């Protein structure tokens, strides 16, 4: 069936909440407003306000509440209106959710999903346009998932809800309305598995979340020039499926990483380091990163465009690598 990313998330949560009444949804505007981005449309009607909880605008408070509820045996899904606001809940996520299992020597666990949109949309300004996945990936105890397609979003969200660990599930505002084919019926996609999104032999592009769509567009354009791009989507950022990515790089000999986040200490730096360690001898050229600019996101349209990886920059990076390497 062809459905939107938004609808895929809606179906995943709905199916899981029907299956297990320990699961509840909590966050700002998730109930009667139907979600700031309408992801929880129809939920309060189906599950009632005891399981679909509108909160005050207090991210630390309601995220901490959900973590405490998870410690006591419930399985909360926390919706952050955006991950920018999740910064207010970082103490709860980093100091509590991620560490409680370890600090307690395995006595307690925190089965929780914290989800919402990350990255930039259109001209939302510096405080609403951040790609913070690297922050979460840095913290032991968290899993981080960032699917790009409706199919992956549904299958991975269902797995995240069933996971016994805290899972950070990063969506994107610009993906919500994009449609894609989703498998009929019940399915899950395991956390921690990358997927080959397009086969090629000349160069590998690793891209996730909405940068995957950019990578696929570039691959299509380069095919006309005779450059066969292999596109790999890690889908899960932590734990990272290095084996699958490395296998692709060993085949193509070249790697371009496209990420929307800030360049310095960004996720691509870690991916590059890992691939260098595993596949250095197979590389025909340096690993290239196309990243967001190291600036707070500007409001003005041309400046914003300049701060985010775009088609031309990815095209140029791939062409340079492929031609330079020959």
């Amino acid at each position, binding site marked *: 069936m062809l459905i939107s990313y938004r609808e895929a998330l809606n179906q995943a949560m709905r199916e899981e909440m029907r299956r297990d009444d320990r699961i*509840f949804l909590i966050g700002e505007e998730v109930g009667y407003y139907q979600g700031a981005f309408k992801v929880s449309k129809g939920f309060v009607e189906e599950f009632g306000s*005891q399981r679909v909880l509108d*909160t*005050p605008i*207090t991210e*630390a*408070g*309601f*995220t*901490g*509440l*959900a*973590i*405490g*509820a*998870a*410690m*006591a*045996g*419930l399985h909360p899904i926390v919706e952050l209106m955006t991950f920018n606001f999740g910064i207010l809940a970082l*103490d*709860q996520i980093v*100091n*509590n959710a991620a560490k*409680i*299992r*370890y*600090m*307690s*020597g*395995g*006595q*307690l*666990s925190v089965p929780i999903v914290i989800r919402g949109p990350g990255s930039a949309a259109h001209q939302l300004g510096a405080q609403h346009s951040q790609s913070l996945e690297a922050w979460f990936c840095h913290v*032991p*105890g968290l*899993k981080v998932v960032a699917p790009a397609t409706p199919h992956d979003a549904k299958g991975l969200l269902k797995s995240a809800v069933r996971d*016994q*660990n805290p899972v950070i599930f990063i969506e994107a505002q610009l993906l919500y309305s994009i449609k894609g084919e989703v498998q009929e019926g019940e399915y899950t996609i395991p956390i921690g598995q990358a997927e080959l999104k397009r086969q090629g032999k000349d160069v590998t592009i690793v891209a996730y979340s909405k940068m995957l769509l950019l990578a696929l567009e570039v691959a299509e354009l380069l095919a006309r020039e005779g450059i066969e791009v292999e596109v790999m989507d890690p889908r899960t950022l932590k734990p990272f499926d290095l084996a699958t990515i490395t296998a692709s790089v060993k085949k193509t000999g070249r790697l371009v990483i496209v990420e929307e986040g800030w360049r310095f200490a960004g996720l691509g730096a870690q991916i590059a380091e890992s691939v260098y360690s595993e596949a250095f001898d197979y590389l025909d050229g340096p690993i290239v990163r196309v990243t967001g600019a190291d600036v707070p996101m500007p409001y003005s349209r041309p400046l914003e465009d300049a701060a985010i990886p775009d088609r031309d920059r990815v095209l140029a990076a791939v062409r340079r690598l492929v031609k330079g390497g020959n």
Partner: protein
Amino acid sequence: MDREDLLTLYRQMLLIRRFEERSAEMYALAKIAGFLHLYIGEEAIAVGAIAAIRADDYVISAYRDHGHCLAKGADPGQVMAELFGKATGLCKGKGGSMHLVDAKRNFMGGYAIVGGHLPLATGLAFAVNYQKRDQVVLCFFGEGALPSGQAHEAFNLAALWKLPVIFICENNRYGMGTPVQRAVALYSNVAATARSYGIEAEPVDGMDVLAVRALMRRVVKLVRSVPHPYFVEATTYRFMGHSMADPAHGHYRTKEEVEEERKRDPLVLLRQSIMNQKLGTEADFKQLEREVGEMVAAAVKFADESPFPARTALEEDVYIE
């Protein structure tokens, strides 16, 4: 008053006192490292409050958590082993003094980011309501946490959603070295903080274990029958420094002040009360000292003789497979 009941309360406070005195000695001998925050002087609050709840009720605390953990029934040997960083510790040596957890007794942990565990307490209480159970949650914290944003967010959510959590503010008058008058705007009436969210609040003499228990029995009954939050301000005094890193008085308070407060030692007060009522004798107290002394000595011996965690434990317990 029942003699056995009073002697039991005394024994519990005495256990915490002697346990922590030995912990301080072990710290001096470098058997214990890191931060060690002693509860000495405040024992009546944990013992009185926890005496008023059921075994399946939840308790959660801040980093000064030895007293609450022991009062909830944790094995002193396992607690001492945790302080020693041993594999036999409550948390296999991974938590330490500030992060004791005894999940099977619903002691849900000590947390060391000031204010950060109050939202967790509301979550435990939320789960109780959600699952239509009838437990209550005791959440202990110092007055230093009161001005924190997370405390206020927790008060608001608890009041809004009628969560069965009893916030127990242990007001020992100092957040580390800063007196409450310089940290909390409503310092002379900290309960007003909770009342401003519509939470009922009462003060209690935190040096009087019987007063604490009596108030808590009443409050627990109310909260258990109709779930809602409650706030208790237990006034107390920390006889030792903030942690082992600083002396009992130092620059921020005088030796005279500490000596004056020590006259209201909760153990001394209860002992005098028992003696005055002729419900106990010198011999009884000697006997208790002997028993508790042996228990603490056994805890230290257990901790000392236990192995450190194996290197293979390093990466265990980060994730559940």
